[in-house]
């Protein structure tokens, strides 16, 4: 039933965890001290590129009747929307660029090009999701209240629709994001009243009107007789952005190895254990520089969850240091190709549409969720960990997981 004792699960002592915390603090301090003009130039250029693409796309679509112009315009607009939402909006509202003290590129000022109001996003994402990451019952992003993504959640009949909800969420991702703050799960459990929800909806409604007005009224109208083509182009651009954003987010959170936790784990959690939970709860995917940029550097989801407010352009360099720490403490560093990570996420969603009695694994020992009990199945095995007597190398969680898989653990 998800991880309750993170130290036991990771085969680390209190002292180990505190030491790991200090080493992660040191990474943060190094990056904070070395932020400077080259980082600032990176985000300024990203903004210039994004606005250039948006303007270019809109202008091309004035000739949207022409097929070539339509494709070029739609592509530019889609890329502009992706870059705005991921590398700019998401990261700027995280405060990654607040250190520049630039009032125009600041978490308190940035309103992103999405139907979700930034102010609500900061609460439901920056606060709830990043603080309570993957704690089942506390982090709404564990299934967003509309899907079962871990068998820690009891099965209900409506969850049979899991794959359909998944498809709908991908298609209407920005609307899902907009409604994120409503906390549908809380409403269902009557922890939030409809009156409160209506208040949120009014704020959302205003933003929706502006966003939809721009894409589906103002620009089609401006392009006159081509309005139908422009309308369709804008819709396609929004769709492309929706699917891509959905893909990146799902690959960061739902592949195998992105662990879940119980509220008990959170209750007495230290800062260092928070770090550890972030490391275990997220997943990366392989990306070159271009794909990294297009994902808002969320291909480094682990690094983002460890340091949500450090500049995204530094995640690549941070990732090397985090991997070195994973080696040192023998911890898993969950990553894989985009295709593999997505397939695992999708397969989990598909499987979990079914009731538990049709599933093979338990919530202590499943691909999408594990607990420290996983290693207790065979009595006394945990004691064989610690330093390898022959090589002196630490034998920790990563070794344990590998040996469980290969069966070596059973033989020792």
């Amino acid at each position, binding site marked *: 039933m998800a991880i309750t004792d993170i130290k036991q699960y990771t085969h680390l002592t209190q002292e180990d965890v505190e030491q790991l915390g200090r080493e992660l603090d040191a990474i943060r301090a190094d990056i904070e001290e070395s932020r400077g003009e080259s980082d*600032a130039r990176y985000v300024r250029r990203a903004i210039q590129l994004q*606005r250039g693409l948006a303007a270019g796309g809109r202008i091309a679509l004035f000739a949207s009747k022409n097929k070539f112009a339509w494709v070029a315009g739609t592509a530019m607009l889609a890329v502009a929307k992706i870059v705005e939402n991921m590398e700019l909006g998401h990261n700027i509202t995280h405060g990654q660029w607040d250190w520049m003290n630039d009032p125009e590129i600041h978490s308190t000022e940035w309103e992103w090009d999405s139907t979700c109001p930034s102010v609500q996003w900061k609460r439901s994402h920056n606060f709830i999701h990043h603080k309570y990451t993957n704690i089942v019952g506390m982090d709404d992003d564990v299934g967003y209240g509309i899907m079962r993504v871990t068998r820690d959640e009891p099965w209900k009949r409506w969850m049979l629709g899991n794959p359909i909800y998944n498809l709908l969420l991908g298609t209407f991702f920005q609307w899902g994001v907009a409604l994120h703050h409503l906390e549908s799960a809380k409403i269902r459990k009557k922890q939030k009243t409809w009156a409160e929800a209506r208040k949120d909806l009014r704020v959302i409604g205003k933003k929706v009107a502006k966003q939809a007005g721009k894409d589906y009224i103002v620009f089609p109208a401006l392009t006159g007789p081509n309005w139908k083509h422009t309308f369709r182009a804008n819709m396609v651009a929004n769709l492309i952005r929706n699917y891509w954003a959905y893909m990146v987010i799902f690959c960061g959170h739902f592949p195998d190895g992105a662990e879940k936790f119980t509220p008990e784990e959170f209750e007495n959690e230290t800062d260092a254990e928070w770090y550890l939970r972030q490391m275990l709860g997220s997943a990366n995917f392989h990306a070159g520089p271009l794909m990294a940029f297009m994902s808002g550097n969320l291909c480094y989801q682990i690094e983002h969850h460890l340091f949500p407010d450090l500049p995204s352009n530094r995640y690549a360099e941070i990732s090397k240091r985090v991997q070195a720490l994973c080696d040192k403490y023998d911890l898993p560093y969950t990553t894989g190709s985009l295709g593999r990570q997505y397939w695992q996420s999708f397969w989990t969603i598909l499987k979990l549409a079914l009731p538990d009695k049709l599933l093979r694994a338990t919530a202590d020992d499943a691909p999408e969720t594990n607990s420290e009990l996983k290693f207790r199945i065979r009595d006394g095995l945990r004691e064989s960990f610690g330093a390898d007597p022959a090589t002196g190398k630490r034998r920790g969680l990563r070794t344990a997981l590998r040996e469980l898989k290969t069966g070596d653990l059973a033989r020792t």
Partner: protein
Amino acid sequence: MGSKLRGLARWTVAPAKDVDTAVTPKVNVLRGLAARATTPLLPDDYLKLLNPLWSARELRGVVVHVQPETEDSATVQIKPGWGFSGDYRPGQYVGIGLRIDGRWHWRSYSLTSVPQRDEKLISITVKATPEGFLSDHLVNGVEPGTVVRLAAPKGDFALPDPPPPKLLFVTAGSGVTPVMAMLRTLQKRGQQPDVVHIHSARSADEVIFHDELRDLEGSQPGYRLHLQLTTEMGKFDFAGLDDVVQDWKERSAWACGPPAMLDSAEKVWADAGLPDELHMERFTIARTDKGGEGGTVTFALSDKSIELDGATSLLEAGEKLGIQMPFGCRMGICQSCVLPLESGHVRDFRSGTEHGEGERIQTCISAASGDCTLKI
């Protein structure tokens, strides 16, 4: 019908209603309309890519010319961009933001330009001080073409129009700058009140605007300059004020300079029972400085203040006073609690970084570092 039209006008201008305009607020109708296509941005956010001055979202300007005045001071001439109103009064100051190594740093400087005379250019005169990180950059490092941020001119240390018939200016060092704006304005307007100007500097070489002040002595009949060169003559002694300007009690007095000088002046005028006749401009907030040792925190909009140690977060302090502080994670990761720091310094107790006036700070991980004021 009328109310419908007004409603329509309000709707049109809504996205741009807080944007500064230089000439007429009607510009924002156009800006608001265009913003329906650029939402959530303003048209300015795109236009500034073509010309950095074509944006009024944040006031900005470009450095046109840097003119050395003395060994360690210079006049920086700036062409303001959209939205900057040239309608300032002599003696007022302007906030300047300069980007150094990726970060924007803010300070306020007295304007030394005259609105009508200088054809929409503004200028500030800056003296480099060893601890003044920004002033040093402005004097020695800023290139023409550099884009700077501006804050609308403000300040009560401003000469009324028409001016009082008899004036006394008491200045020292770079404290001469707001008074220079006043003297230039008087000259521009052709006004000739009776002015006595006591100015202190270490030596003649270090007198900012030395030649111009001497010229004024010749050309402006009512203007008398008493130059106190402190290396040879020592500091100006207010006990001898009667000797320099016998009728000082009849004059409207304006003083600007280092805190010690202002404190002495304040006492002299208070003892004479004329505190209202003395106008003062203090350049530096005495900084109790580095270490986050606590101080008095003022919550400006709520009009409340509290004495704090260096370990209590500003968020907790505000909540203790019953202020509705924005909050979120309370661990420094979500940015929900960020507020603008109006004055003073705070220390981020996670990283130890000191933040100053004009910055936005995370109240959940900031403690007072001396007296400070938050805008809430």
